[in-house]
């Protein structure tokens, strides 16, 4: 690599990077070393580097988001912010950056960050839909994606879910109850599918229904568990 790149002023470096991005987009030979050096400087907290990285790659990230996610402009904006936070945390540290030997690897991982945030968003929306499905009130809206950025909200929700799991498991009398919790509620399998996978554990699908009902009854009789389930964090 041309070591003089490391000495180039960051704004000139960004200019060269922008030219090479245009070359790449026009399917012409391009040199990734300028943009790679820009990412490296952002890793080392060099002033302006992260701002240039963002301005040069923002449209790329947005188009990748749109490829994987159909949502409002506001949702896409929220996902963009989460992608940037995760990318900066997961790549742009000197220790982590060693794992990315060239620009292709950095941009591929950036694309992976987009995918992972979209996956997590879809998971959360699925959980919200399930939570909504039992609500007796109509018109309850899906939690906005922006809450995924709020660390306190995320931690509160995680803590609540773990407390629910602990409460539920405290009523498991034997390992087959644990199996039911895992397969019926964590993995959301139907009783007939649980029986197919674990025929040695249960004598019939009916037995699964009976055991599940007994478990639900025990949990329901526990006022602490009931209260916990009735007061999910927002």
């Amino acid at each position, binding site marked *: 690599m041309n070591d003089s790149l490391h000495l180039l002023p960051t704004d000139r470096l960004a200019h060269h990077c922008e030219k090479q991005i245009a070359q790449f987009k026009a399917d012409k030979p391009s*040199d990734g070393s300028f943009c790679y050096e820009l990412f490296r400087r952002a890793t080392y907290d060099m002033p302006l580097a992260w701002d240039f990285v963002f301005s040069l790659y923002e449209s790329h990230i947005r188009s990748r988001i749109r490829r994987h996610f159909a949502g409002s402009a506001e949702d896409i904006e929220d996902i963009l912010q989460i992608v940037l936070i995760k990318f900066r945390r997961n790549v742009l540290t000197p220790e982590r950056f060693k794992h990315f030997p060239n620009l292709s690897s950095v941009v591929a991982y950036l694309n992976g*960050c987009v995918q992972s945030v979209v996956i997590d968003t879809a998971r959360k929306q699925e959980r919200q839909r399930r939570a909504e499905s039992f609500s007796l009130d109509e018109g309850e809206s899906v939690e906005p994606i922006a809450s995924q950025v709020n660390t306190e909200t995320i931690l509160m929700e995680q803590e609540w879910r773990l407390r629910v799991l602990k409460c539920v498991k405290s009523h498991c009398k034997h390992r087959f109850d644990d199996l039911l919790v895992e397969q019926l509620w964590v993995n959301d399998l139907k009783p007939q599918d649980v029986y197919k996978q674990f025929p040695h554990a249960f004598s019939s699908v009916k037995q699964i229904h009976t055991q599940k*009902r007994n478990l639900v009854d025990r949990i329901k009789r526990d006022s602490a568990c009931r209260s916990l389930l009735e007061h999910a964090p927002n």
Partner: protein
Amino acid sequence: MTKRANQEDSDDELFEKRIKAALFRINCPDADLLLDYKWGLLSAKKTAVIHQHLATCPYCGGELANLVAPPPISTSPSAPEKQFPQRFRTLFAQFVGHHAMTRSSQNESGRGRIISSLWYEIEALGWDLEMHWGLEPDNLFLIQGQLLGPNPEIFDSIKIDLIEEIDVETGLVKPTAKTTPDSAGLFVLEAIPAGVYALRLRTPADVIPIPDITLNMPDE
């Protein structure tokens, strides 16, 4: 079935739904951990945990398959890359902070007024680099700096270049000024015109580039 029994069933169903909503995929790692697993970026312990989870989870395997994989290491670059012989190991400095001053305070040597300061850490060598610069009466800059580190005995073998002109095509650089630190790590670069420079520290084995040393005339 009685109306009461129907109501109880409905309540049980609702209650179970609450449990499901709370516990759905509670054991699944966040997708960015799956990404790191796919890229081999996790510790051995975390890798083993995720590997075990993938063996039983009906969802994560599909998500993992859809995540982008690391690109193969290309043996032939798409464009001719500029290759220059490397005689030195290149180390990088972590930017710590800068301090822009506008007050008319004299620098430590009693000359000019300090306009700005920069701090860097060179972790690979355990060094800190501190620089500040001030404007002299002739409107040229005086840069003063200090290297601090565990092996000061090598400081006087370090060459420091202040570079303004950089040709990325040829790799040629033209130093505006050169110096060497004393045994205390102190160095001075004098009579520097305003402009944007890079500092290059060269030890017998390493090169440490520091770009963006911006010497601006202060706003009056």
